[in-house]
């Protein structure tokens, strides 16, 4: 399967995405500089984490005007799979490709640690290999991962089953203590209505191998591979 990873000035998890896709999952991966418009014919586009434009102004606010983002939007409009991780999620929200917005963590601090997330929806191309309610141990590393959306938006998310993953404890219970950043409804990741665009704050790119503390992130990549196989 062919992945393209977009690279913005200030992206810094681009290497991690490249590594997990190519060396751990054994797939093809192209790195696409933000000034380019040709995505090089991918099956899935990954918008990686990092600090595009230093996170200056607002996370993701400047990156979304990069030339490559128009191509990513067109690709998604045609049904292509797009996944945004951490800063990638923030960029997709700013670009309007995903609903909601990510604001400062409730603690106002950057937080780097492993958390647990619960898979709420398995009928997406990004989670189809998960069992319903499966709990994944997966790291977060962000200062602005506090998901917010207005009441109407939240209702829509629920009605359309767009809340894909939520923060929980190791047993899968969603508790206030297991919500690391104050996200509304403990939302860790959402998809769009068409279910082909997915964003999440936790890092499946950093949790592909046991030596790193968890291989649970692999199931996200495996789902994407399965989705492609299903299409073919």
């Amino acid at each position, binding site marked *: 399967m062919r992945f393209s990873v977009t690279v913005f*000035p200030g992206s810094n998890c681009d290497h*991690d995405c490249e590594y997990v896709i190519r060396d751990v999952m054994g797939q093809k991966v192209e790195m696409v500089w933000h000034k380019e418009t040709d995505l090089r014919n991918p099956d899935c586009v990954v918008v990686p984490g990092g600090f595009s434009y*230093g996170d200056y102004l607002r996370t993701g606010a400047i990156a979304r005007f990069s030339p490559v983002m128009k191509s990513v939007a067109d690709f998604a409009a045609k049904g292509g799979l797009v996944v945004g991780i951490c800063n990638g999620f923030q960029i997709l929200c700013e670009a309007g490709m995903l609903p909601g917005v990510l604001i400062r963590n409730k603690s106002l601090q950057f937080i*780097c640690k492993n958390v647990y997330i619960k898979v709420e929806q398995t009928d997406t191309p990004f989670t189809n290999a998960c069992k319903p309610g499966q709990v994944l141990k997966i790291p977060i590393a962000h200062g602005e991962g506090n998901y917010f959306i207005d009441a109407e938006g939240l209702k829509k998310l629920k009605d359309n089953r767009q809340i894909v993953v939520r923060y929980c404890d190791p047993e899968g219970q969603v508790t206030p203590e297991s919500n690391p950043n104050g996200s509304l409804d403990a939302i860790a990741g959402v998809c769009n209505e068409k279910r082909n665009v997915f964003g999440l704050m936790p890092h499946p790119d950093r949790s592909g191998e046991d030596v790193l503390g968890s291989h649970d992130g692999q199931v996200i990549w495996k789902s994407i591979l399965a989705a492609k196989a299903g299409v073919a």
Partner: protein
Amino acid sequence: MTSSIMDVEITPQVIKEHGLKPDEYDRICKILGRKPNITELGLYSVMWSEHCGYKHSRALLKTLPTKGPKVLQGPGENAGIMDIGEGWAVAFKVESHNHPSAIEPYQGAATGVGGILRDIFTMGARPVANLNSLRFGPLSDPKVKRLFAGVVRGIADYGNCMGIPTIAGEVVFDESYTENCLVNAMSVGLVRHEHIIKGRASGLNNPVIYIGATTGRDGIHGATFASTEITDESTEKRSAVQVADPFMEKLLMEATLELIHNDLLVGIQDMGAAGLTCSTCEMASRGGAGIEIDVAKVPQREKGMTPYEILLSESQERMLLVAKPGCEQKVHDVLAKWDLHAATIGFVTDTGRMVVKENGKVVADVPADSLTEAPIYHPAKSEPAILKKHRDFDETSVPDCKNPGEILEKLLSDPTIASKRWVYRQYDHMVRSNTLVRPGSDAGVLRVKGTSLGLAMTIDGLGSYCALDPYEGAKIVVAEAARNIACSGAEPIGMTDCLNFGSPEKPEVYYYFDRVISGLGDACRAFNIPITGGNVSLYNENPSGAIDPTPIVGMMGLFSDVNTAVTQWFKDDGDPIYLLGDIGGTIGGSRYLQVTHGKKTGRCPHLDLEAEHRLHQVLKAMADAKFLQSAHDCSDGGFAVALAECCFTGLTHEEAARGAKVSLPGKGRFDGRLFGEAQSRVVVSCKPAMGAQLEAMAKKFGVPCEKIGQVGGKELAVGNEMKVSIDKLADLFFTSIEKQMA
């Protein structure tokens, strides 16, 4: 405008304001064969400051061991470099940003990280890890809390934005640092041998190119500022705080590495302390060449800047490079890709001189190496009377402890001993997906992708020991850092150090400085660990006195097979626990004596260099043979604290806390054996089936080894003397700083 500053008369007052002594001024006149103009005076002033010129330290630094088969680059470049095999090398260096952080904690610490990162990537190495060593006054002080919070956030924001994991560090809270906090930042990079590049200029007429942020009036005289004591007046001089721009630095880093990997450069140097002045004269002097630049071509942020200001500005995130002939256009193309400013501001000459023009008119013309060769001083030294008092302290005047459980709780809650989770959670320590051992164990461990190699790293300092006995204390700092590496299963291969002291012009401070350098050198020679570079920060004092003499040591360890890495926490119930080394029994200089008895005194523990070296070797051998389930050295808080940490520090890594039941070896005072800080001791555990082999191996290496108990239960039980709940201890340990900072 320009002419008015050029006309400034060089009076004794002007010379003094530039921090130059009358005989230094005479020396400048002799070098030039005439009087310097004000711009030239400015150049000498910054380059001959303590910070850049190492006037009071160079003679002693020369005594340190710097050579070894793996050393590819020793002191003298932006960072030291060591071979680690398979065509890879590691670059590392530590640097202080104490004074700027005291004035403006967030920006000061952030720009400190920025500076040390530039030192790494200007060598052609990609930074792969950051470390930091911090010292503050007691955490109960609200001013300290703000300082601590600001410094940590500054380090976090910079490293996180750059995408470089901060994987190790240390924090100490002690009264001696209340007015002078210490912020030492270390960075580590990986480089293929063929990509190593140096900060030299060569090749007649090769273009000299300026890249990065524009030049403003910030930090002018930062270097001279870092070389004087903090007084109320210096808080006034602060007008020009440097604002960190990690995004710019990220672009600079990527562009620089691309330029180097495409073989477009002759040399490259960052602009740190003393800015354009330092980078220009150092590159010329190292390359045995000359450089001519025109300051009018320097990209400027403010209007009407004089040559003096442009040359001395310490605006951050700037670099100077010399392109290969015919590569200038390609250099500009790479920089354009990264949206970076670039300006050709001059060219390489063969005159050995640093010539500065402004719109074609010469404003400074001096021999480049006269700037990099500051005068060397051999200050007077005398042993402070207090040292004898410490040595003569009578331990028997302190009653033995009756309530070891309570003392253990108190020690684990002491902010210096307690978990620094509040700190490292703010640092991205996983980015680049190489971190195999995250913060919380004796050393951070990284893999080198595509190989079986790995690196272990740690940074340590023990100012309180050095204050009691600078020679012994310095030996212990090296030993402890190397021991931390050995506990992780790696071989200590090289070291960098940052020497934080008060004013060298005071004979007592200089005495400490001299003895500390002897101790560092002797320990490194005993362990065969070369020092590949470092930094000196003097004048860390205020009207009420100097800081404790604080050498900080950054240690690099190598794994040929990183799968042998060991962590400090117990793994399985039933595993036997051993103590390697002798339990000892003195309490002098211990954290215990300080925390429970309020006494910062006594005889500093003694370190037997040979016994310590054998310990490092046996630990490595045991790790290689995969005997070890865990290994953790006894340091602050002694045996009891080390044991407790083995029980619960795995919690940071989502591993279960485990109890242990052990007997207390040795004879004599309980408090000495439980909480004393005798050296060369490590608590290890292994799978039950490995016990006999482990004991045999210890015997072979001549290292004392005693089976003391086994892992299991919900309590830490030491003989009949102490029994405490692990959950309670873990809670105190992990939340003590968090609660104070809430």
